[in-house]
């Protein structure tokens, strides 16, 4: 914590830069992978292999006209995309990408902040994102927006409970809320081996939390136009879009941190293992999107409350019993 300000600034800039780069390029990867899953080639015109496509998309979005509906609540309409986007970025601050390394004769921790309630911090941030969605729909003064945002909020509120319970097993095993300590507790065995049910619950609940297929009800365009962001255009729309992909990256990073052993791996520990595992998680989420159809809304709610939640509670109970019987620090 006694690092000079300059080191903090460098660390924040590098991690933020990589993170935003990932957010931009995961869109390209998704379009490419989905293309090949559907026996197409995906974007290929802009630059080699379509690699400049994200830049072209950004230029397109920036140069579009920025519309605000006349009957919208003016400043809440402008605030909503910010509330959706900023927490999505802030979650990145506590994720440990690697252990302490020596660079230029100084011990440098890889990761912006290391707080002892890191896990709770991520949950606090992700629960703030709901406000962005709820306010976007309400302030647009449009019935499709309102219906879309009511659905999204209901979905997020419902699955947040299961998501929180699914990771408590990990907290019990590691005996800490600190993400760094959770990773260090997996030195011998990643928690996915000890918490297979917790891992599956986490994947399912977090897919719903970030509104990915098969839980992408907020974007059910056949019934809701475009859901809560129907009235948004230009960069305000882009902020919702980026928030969505930022959340996808964060969820993958959290899955790696909580269940897959973080930066630790065979041969040499380091951020490269984190990157490999996170990429695998991201690929998995894209693969799921290319494979599964969408749930109906009532199925979604029934699945969340009547299957996921009881299973998460049982898993927590079983883990707690195991920790009491065999002692913590598995």
């Amino acid at each position, binding site marked *: 914590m006694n690092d000079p300000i300059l080191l903090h600034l460098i660390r924040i800039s590098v991690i933020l830069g990589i993170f935003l780069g990932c957010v931009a390029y995961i869109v390209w990867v998704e379009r490419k992978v989905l293309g090949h899953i559907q026996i197409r080639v995906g974007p290929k015109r802009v630059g080699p292999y379509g690699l400049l496509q994200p830049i072209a998309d950004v230029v397109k979005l920036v140069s579009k006209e920025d519309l605000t509906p006349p009957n919208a*609540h003016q400043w*809440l309409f402008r605030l909503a995309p910010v509330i959706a986007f900023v927490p999505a970025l802030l979650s990145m601050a506590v994720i440990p990408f690697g252990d302490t390394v020596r660079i230029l004769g100084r011990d440098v921790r890889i990761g912006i902040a290391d*707080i*002892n*309630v890191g896990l*709770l*911090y991520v*949950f*606090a941030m992700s*629960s*703030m994102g*709901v*406000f962005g969605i*709820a*306010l976007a*729909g*309400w302030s647009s003064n449009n019935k499709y927006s*309102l219906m879309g*945002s*009511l659905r999204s*909020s*209901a979905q997020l*509120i419902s699955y*947040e409970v299961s998501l929180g319970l699914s990771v408590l097993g990990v907290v019990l095993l590691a005996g800490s*809320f600190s993400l760094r300590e959770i990773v260090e507790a997996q030195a011998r065995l990643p928690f996915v081996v000890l918490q297979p049910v917790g891992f599956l619950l986490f994947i399912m609940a977090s897919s719903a939390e970030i509104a990915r297929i098969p839980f992408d009800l907020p974007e059910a365009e056949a019934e809701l136009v475009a859901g809560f962001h129907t009235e948004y255009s230009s960069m305000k729309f882009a902020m919702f879009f980026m928030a969505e992909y930022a959340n996808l990256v964060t969820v993958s990073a959290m899955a790696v941190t909580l269940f897959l052993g973080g930066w630790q791996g065979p041969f040499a520990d380091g951020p490269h293992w984190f990157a490999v595992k996170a990429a695998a998680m991201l690929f998995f989420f894209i693969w799921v999107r290319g494979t599964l159809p969408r749930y109906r809304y009532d199925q979604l709610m029934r699945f969340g409350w009547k299957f996921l939640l009881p299973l998460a509670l049982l898993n927590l109970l079983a883990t707690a019993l195991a920790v009491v019987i065999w002692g913590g620090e598995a």
Partner: protein
Amino acid sequence: MNLAGFAILSALAIASALSVILQRNPVMSALSLVVTIFSLAVAFLSLGTAFLAAVQVIVYAGAIMVLFVFVIMLLDLGRREPFRMTGLSRKLIGLAAAAAFFAQVAASISATGVLGAKPPAPLSPGYGSAADIGRAIFTDYLYPFEAASVLLLAAMVGALVMAKKRIER
């Protein structure tokens, strides 16, 4: 915590709390309450109780206030006519409730002896950590904690019963 930081935080908390009751639009009131909760969370953080700060944001801002906003949106309150408190008796009841609450808070603060000349005892290490709070809830405050659980359960059952009646009608 230094005095300037504390002054800014308290000013923000009080201003947003006033905004909660002065806004005509219920959505704006709810959002003002979120700002109040956030400033309280930062106050907890500056006192070194990061766990309480995180829980404050998750439970109050992230769960309860989200539900408030959700219900306000669902019932579409406040878009047609603004909130307004009418009638003398209601104002008197409100005043009495506020006075009782103020007296209660004042009594609690003076009971802790913070206002006395004696500086408060230094906090034990681990004060306000998850383990510390968990132990306090399940040992010293077990009965109040269980009573609160029963109260919440009763409220939940009551809400379900009321909602169900409306559907059958």
